[in-house]
């Protein structure tokens, strides 16, 4: 199974990491979209399992969560989805989730089962480094990499402790706020990348608000090892719900554009 380490070592530019909510707008369309994204040049996938109360997400991903849940998405189907993706191509997959779904499944069992399905890491949006103990052992036991978030208001000492616990990459939040497309990159992100680069060798991948090829280029130039694009891509799905068949090609087109830019 392809690791983050191999992927970052092979890449000459910043990794392109699209985010999708599994099963948005429905299982089959979602599968076609993610496959198209892989073909278009995605280096790593960031996948979310929909939660009823996503407090770190803006309206675009909230709506995607609702679409997925309404279309019948659940934990078991999410696992099947990941297996199907891995059967299509051996690409590293990071899960981005809310804690309750994992806690209800049983944390240890969740990590083990999803590792077996082909996931490389599980990032929990509402679990900070202060409670890392609850997930580090299960992750290690399952052979998964660990990923935690750093935000622009994280103090350097704390950022160091977070970096020490990350084996995959540091999920670097570009702004103070929730997910969602933005016209401009926050002016907080470049100093944050510089700060992280001075304290750690763990790859720095930047997400939240990254929306255009220009943003991706700016981040890559600032030293980011990967760019995570979520809401902007999910918006393509939202905007084309009346013609679902057209979505995979449209998503692929956007991803190619970003890929070319970086």
């Amino acid at each position, binding site marked *: 199974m392809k690791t983050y380490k191999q992927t970052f070592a092979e890449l000459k530019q910043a990794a392109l990491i699209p985010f999708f909510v599994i099963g948005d707008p429905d299982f089959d369309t979602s599968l076609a979209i993610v496959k198209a994204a892989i073909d278009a040049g995605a280096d790593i996938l960031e996948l979310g399992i929909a939660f009823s*109360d996503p407090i770190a997400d803006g309206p675009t991903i909230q709506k995607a969560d609702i679409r997925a849940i309404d279309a019948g998405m659940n934990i078991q189907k999410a696992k099947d989805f990941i297996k199907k993706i891995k059967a299509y191509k051996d690409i590293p997959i990071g899960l981005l989730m809310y*804690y309750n779904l994992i806690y*209800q499944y049983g944390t240890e069992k969740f990590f083990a089962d999803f590792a077996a399905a082909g996931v490389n890491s599980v990032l929990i949006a509402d679990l*900070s480094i202060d409670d890392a103990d609850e997930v580090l052992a299960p992750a290690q036991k399952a052979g998964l990499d660990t990923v935690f978030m750093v935000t622009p208001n994280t*103090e350097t000492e704390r950022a160091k402790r977070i970096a020490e616990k990350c084996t995959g990459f540091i999920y670097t939040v570009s702004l103070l*706020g929730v997910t969602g497309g933005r016209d401009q990159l926050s002016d907080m992100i470049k100093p944050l990348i510089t700060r992280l680069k001075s304290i750690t060798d763990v790859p720095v991948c930047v997400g939240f608000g990254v929306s255009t090829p220009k943003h991706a280029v700016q981040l890559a130039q600032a030293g980011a090892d990967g760019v995570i694009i979520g809401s902007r891509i999910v918006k393509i799905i939202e905007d084309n719900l009346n013609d679902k068949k057209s979505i995979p090609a449209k998503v692929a087109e956007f991803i190619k554009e970003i890929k070319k830019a970086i």
Partner: protein
Amino acid sequence: MKDKGRFGQFGGFYVPEVLIPALEEMEEAFYQYYKDDKFVAELNTLYCDYAGRPTPLYYATRFSELVGFKVYIKREDLLHGGAHKVNNCLGQGLLAKYMGKTKLIAETGAGQHGLATSMIGALFGMQTKIFMGAIDVDRQSVNVHKMRLCGAEVISVSGGTRTLKDAINEALRYWTSNISDTFYLFGTVCGPHPYPTIVKHFQTCIGTEARRQCLEKIGRLPDIVTACVGGGSNAIGIFNAFVEDKTVKLIGVEPAGRGIATGKHAAPLSAGRVGILHGTKMYLMQDGDGQILDTESISAGLDYPGVGPEHCLLKDTKRAEYVAVEDEAVLDIFDIFTKCEGILPALESSHSLAWVYSQRNKLPADTVVVVNLSGRGDKDVGIVEKNRPVK
């Protein structure tokens, strides 16, 4: 963070990284000021002159005759704003002022916490935004109007189930984008640490007064103390002063809505599983995967799928007992109690009165029960009229 904010296995601070510095700042400020002489003196003056503390402990003569034992009412309904919420809002509002924050945000269900926050925003000259589920904006329109009159902006939340839970989601999201100048004035003993501890502290005046008043009036402690439980702030506020008094039974009353068996309720202590939402580990209404379930209660203030972590511990250790009463019993008691005493109880508080009524002629005549009447029912007359038209 200095503390983990745990109550046994419950509590904690399960939040996105971006909120950690804000919670740390709040925890630090709270520990710095809550025993500070100047802060305490200023808060006590506000409790007394602005809110109307101490509130009376009233012996409900006719209601006592009806149920066959002695019922004392802790009159939080007489407070400014009409509910216990002002205790917490004055405390946190003053803390915000000491921290140099200039803006307040809050979630609200029944509108009582939103109203109390709006009052305090006006009092301290702070810009105030209130997040409220669209359904609640509808069913508690009088309070919405009052909030706006106080100068607050009321934001109607149309996502999710459009009730208290979604108002909290939206307030948390807004806070992550505005943490530097904005204080999130949380309304109950839920949410991430340090809120359960802070809110308990500022509500404990209810119990401290009630305990003293019992000793003065009756010469002994009560046998039972009861309160309704939404998030659990009015209940913790009165329980906390009696927790060490092992002879005093503590009864928390949850909303059983249309009946626990129907699933249409908001009673996580009666029918929930341990889970994590809004930054805390607690009993929670959820499906098998852990998706949060819709709740239902005639009282907007109790319509929440979770419950304060300390209540979860009090339940597990059996120090407190939690029961649930249905909407129909709540509507019955609203009428019975108002006709007996000439006091309109909030539909939230009516839950604890309904439990007391369910015990009629079952307890010895010299039993002393203290009911925390957390709020007044003026805001609910429309709902009551709709369900039980006066002929």
